[in-house]
């Protein structure tokens, strides 16, 4: 088995397939206090992230859209991960996940337990696919910071 075969199995794990087939929190959120659009025109990936923030806590998170398995699973895992977290913690998570996916993590910084999100790290070995995994997170960041432009990661 080649290195590439190993890398492929690192990335395409059952948790990715599971979240691709049955994405969690896949619905619009009528009561959303924040939302933003993300779009990678070159691959056609497109999504909207909805958040309901109260007392600086993300009470609800959801998304709708379409894309590849990596972008769909990343968005699905993200909505699970941020629910119930304070906004400041969600923003810190965005920064850490971004560093994890792009391979720019500060090795000196204390290690974070990414839990299920760790599976997304497999995308590092596929440079052209990193943008698929980061799209939902950039869109989340835009929603929280009130940025009006559509998020892009390509």
């Amino acid at each position, binding site marked *: 088995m*080649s290195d590439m075969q190993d890398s492929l199995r690192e990335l395409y794990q059952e948790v990715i397939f599971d979240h691709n087939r049955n994405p969690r929190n896949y619905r619009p959120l009528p009561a959303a206090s924040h939302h933003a659009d993300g779009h990678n025109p070159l691959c056609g990936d497109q999504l909207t992230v909805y958040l309901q923030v109260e007392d600086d806590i993300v009470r609800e998170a959801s998304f709708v859209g379409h894309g590849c398995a990596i972008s769909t699973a990343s968005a699905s895992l993200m909505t699970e991960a941020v629910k119930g977290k304070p906004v400041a913690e969600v923003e810190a998570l965005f920064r850490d996940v971004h560093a994890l996916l792009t391979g720019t993590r500060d090795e000196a910084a204390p290690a974070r337990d990414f839990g299920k999100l760790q599976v997304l790290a497999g995308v590092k070995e596929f440079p052209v696919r990193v943008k698929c995994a980061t799209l939902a997170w950039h869109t989340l960041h835009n929603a929280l910071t009130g940025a009006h432009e559509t998020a892009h990661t390509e």
Partner: protein
Amino acid sequence: MNAPRDTVLNAPLLAHAADFPILARPVNGRRLAYLDNGATTQKPKAVIEAEARFYRESNANIHRGVHWLSQHATALYDDARATVQRFINAASADEIVFTRGTTEAINLVAQSWGRPRLTAGDEILLSTMEHHSNIVPWQLVCEQTGAVLKVIPVQDDGELDMAAFEGLLGERTRLLAITHVSNALGTVNPVAEMTRRAHEVGALVLVDGAQAVAHQAVDVQAIGCDFYAFSGHKLYAPTGIGALYGRAELLRRMPPWQGGGDMIRTVAFDKTTFAPPPQRFEAGTPNIAGAIGLAAAIDYVSGVGMDRIHAHEQALLDYGTRALQDIPGVRLVGTARDKAGILSFLVEGIHPHDLGTILDAEGVAIRAGHHCAMPLMTRFGIPGTARASLALYNGEADLDALVAAIHKAQELFGSRRSAGRRP
């Protein structure tokens, strides 16, 4: 390397695969099945060597030196132009302008022919299946002149709606800009017939031949078109070289579009006069080695025989079409009656980009995405497709590898045991 099953058509051409050094290198530990020829083709030793030999033995600037090397390089460059002329059967070598590729050739016509002549309300007719490079140059010239684009629709099978084409032709039609072969669907358009109809209403015709010249014999005089554009790199030649064919009487009346050396006759601050075509359109030192590489590629395919290449790729297309149609969950996009060796497809439940990544790990190189034809993808309501595109060195083994890799992807995605949700 797996020994491909021989067929009468397959066997003689497959021997030529050995002419392409890159095909011998494994990718991701697998035998490379290179099926991304619509993006670019691999280069035979004859082309790689011709370009290297030019730099080793003949390098000098052209059209300006009195020294021997310069005259030698100039002769090689002029010979390359004559080779292109014979390849597409232009009436004269002066009708061949070297460009960086198809894109630059189309921009040249848009800016040099279109911009000075088009006025508000003039119509440029193109089709939904055009590559962005045959859309955007016309949008730019429309903004500059007030001309408008009209678009021939595409039917579900990937053929042009010819009745709609007839309806769109009119007295305001100034140019038909149409692809010879669709890069995303493989559809071969009836360009000779369309040219005849466009000429009847007084319009000129530009044919985008990027996906055609490597796969069938092209005769610009038989087509009757006014301009024909193509790239070298899709024809086994180096990148950065291509050609525009333009009828001599049109090129003579077109102003330069870029200024510089090599395109002038005399320069003075009060009056500069320009060289005749084709030099008028080749400002600056051109891609001399590229032109020589292009001529070597044309000699190479001519040696193999364009008719044999066409027959071989058609046989492979039939083989691949049947093989893909036999896989449950695979849908071909583009099923025109007249097709070149392009298989665009979707696998149910697997996004083309996931498929591309998984196939790559199996050594199968395809293109996944919108193929620079976003309006066409919108027409079919899809973000993109997976595309396998053929060349003379492909054999049944490459398509067998493709099919095996698709099965593997389906297994991995579990899309054959679960209906799944299509994202």
